[in-house]
């Protein structure tokens, strides 16, 4: 190789090394940040019953929890059942009618083989359909508790949150997407009829 | 020398620009050729007209219209049409190759889809038809058996030129038309 060729090769090598150092530094910092976030998760805020929780799409205020054998419809079931009912106020903060409250809150230590709860509108005492925006309603969620498992004295509920994106990453369509849990609520379980 | 090269360069430039006007539509057509041919193939375009009383082979069975009854509807301007037809099965695989659809059409091009349940009027006016299955009865097709089916339609009293068309998805683009 002549002297000029070696000079250009060295310049190119130098530029290559500088660029790769930058890229490696970026990758290393991003990795370190992810590891740090995973090791120190943000604590989920605790909320008390009666305190409104803003989850993005819904504003939920828990009222009380009780067990009973008669569902909120008032009609005695044909086979005896143990029901755990949670009463709460729900306000739809989105711009259209929605019935996406089915997975809004879950039992914090999940109970195995527990069927999903049924949601009732306290006003009609019947199964709830979609909730209209900006018109808060009192609702009751009823779990059919398995007979063998004892009902806990204190119920912990984890409330999920959602954000609205005007353009999502796949289609560019507007939608609501799950984010970190908004709060954890502890309710004392009373007993009812 | 430079003038000549300048000229040929300009000519090449404009020729390429003109070629773009041809190449772009060609690229679009080549890319969507598959979808276009699939769409054309999926349309039902060739009707097979069947005269009353004759049987016609279609999608692996011999089809025949056995009855077309008019019954009074709920109001004076509605009429219920009960169409009964049967299929003598030759090849069940062809019959079940796609969804079946039965539609009543008139001479103005309007289409009536069958009602979900026969209803009390059909049960009283034509009880035999009320028990027959709708065209999903083809799901139980076996070679050699004849499947009788019936469909009910609610049409205006003044609809004329009514024709029953039966389509089986796997046999497109052909479809049967009974008058």
């Amino acid at each position, binding site marked *: 190789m002549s002297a000029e060729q070696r000079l250009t090769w060295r310049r190119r090598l130098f530029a290559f090394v500088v660029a790769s150092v930058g890229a490696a530094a970026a990758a290393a910092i991003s990795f370190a940040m992810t590891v740090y976030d995973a090791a120190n998760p943000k604590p989920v805020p605790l909320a008390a019953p009666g305190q409104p929780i803003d989850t993005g799409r819904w504003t939920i205020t828990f009222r009380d929890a009780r067990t009973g054998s008669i569902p909120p419809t008032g009609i005695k079931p044909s086979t005896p059942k143990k029901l755990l009912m949670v009463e709460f106020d729900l306000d739809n903060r989105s711009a259209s*009618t929605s019935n996406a409250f089915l997975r809004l809150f879950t039992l914090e230590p999940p109970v195995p083989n527990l069927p999903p709860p049924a949601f009732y509108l306290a006003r009609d005492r019947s199964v709830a359909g979609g909730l209209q925006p900006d018109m808060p309603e009192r609702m009751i969620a009823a779990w059919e508790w398995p007979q063998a498992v004892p009902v806990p004295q204190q119920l912990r509920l984890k409330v999920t949150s959602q954000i609205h994106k005007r353009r999502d990453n796949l289609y560019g369509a507007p939608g609501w997407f799950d984010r970190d849990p908004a709060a954890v609520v502890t309710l004392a379980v009373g007993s009812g009829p | 020398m430079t003038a000549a090269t300048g000229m040929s360069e300009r000519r090449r430039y404009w020729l390429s620009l003109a070629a773009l006007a041809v190449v772009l539509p060609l690229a679009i057509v080549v890319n969507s050729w598959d979808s276009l041919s699939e769409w054309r193939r999926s349309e039902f375009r060739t009707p097979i007209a069947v005269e009353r009383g004759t049987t016609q082979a279609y999608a692996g069975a011999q089809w025949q219209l056995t009855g077309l009854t008019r019954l009074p509807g709920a109001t004076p301007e509605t009429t219920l049409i009960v169409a009964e037809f049967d299929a003598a099965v030759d090849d069940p695989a062809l019959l079940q190759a796609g969804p079946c659809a039965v539609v009543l059409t008139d001479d103005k091009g309007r289409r009536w889809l069958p009602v979900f349940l026969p209803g009390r009027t059909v049960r009283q006016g034509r009880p035999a038809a009320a028990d027959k299955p709708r065209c999903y009865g083809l799901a139980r097709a076996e070679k050699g058996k004849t499947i009788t089916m019936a469909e009910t339609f609610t049409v205006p009293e003044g609809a004329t030129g009514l024709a029953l068309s039966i389509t089986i998805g796997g046999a497109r683009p052909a479809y049967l038309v009974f008058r």
Partner: protein
Amino acid sequence: MSAVLKGLGGLALAAAVLYGMQRTTPGYGEITAPRPVAGKLGHRLEGRAFAIDIAKVQLARTVATKGAARDSNFTTSGVWVLVEGTAEARTESLTLLSAEWLGANGVRYAMSQRLSSLPGMLPGQRLEPGLPMPVLMAFEIPEGQVAGGTLLIARSAWAPLAEQARIEMAGAKPVDIRPCLVLARSQGRVPWTVSAE
């Protein structure tokens, strides 16, 4: 020097054009939005697939229903809107499953599912070509959304490029809110009656 300026000018122009294109690109929601057909209260709206004519809009604070098994009283924190009209399919049998009240602030209120089991409700009516049928819709809206509302009626809420009837509800005014409306079954051509208590 002028070559540098020309280069920078070209760069700035390209950046401006790209920025304009990014800001004005319609999202997937706008590209597949339903096609609106405008209409007015009391006039027949003719679309390609269906025709609808909204005759009457009534407002009430509570709705009482007289059913076969029991009587119910439906209260609401806002206002009930009962919309009566006639609908007809144009070329093929169809069912109109989606009806929404578009408030003045852009919020959409779908039909109330609390009254959905009554006779003559829009999503339960199969519309046939040549046979106009009476249809009923019930909405629950806050009182502030009564004025300046628009009714959006379509075959389906999610089908891309579906035909959507947009009917301006200029006749609905907050002064006309009655304390109670009674919704009862009827045996005639119209399967319901709406009467003030």
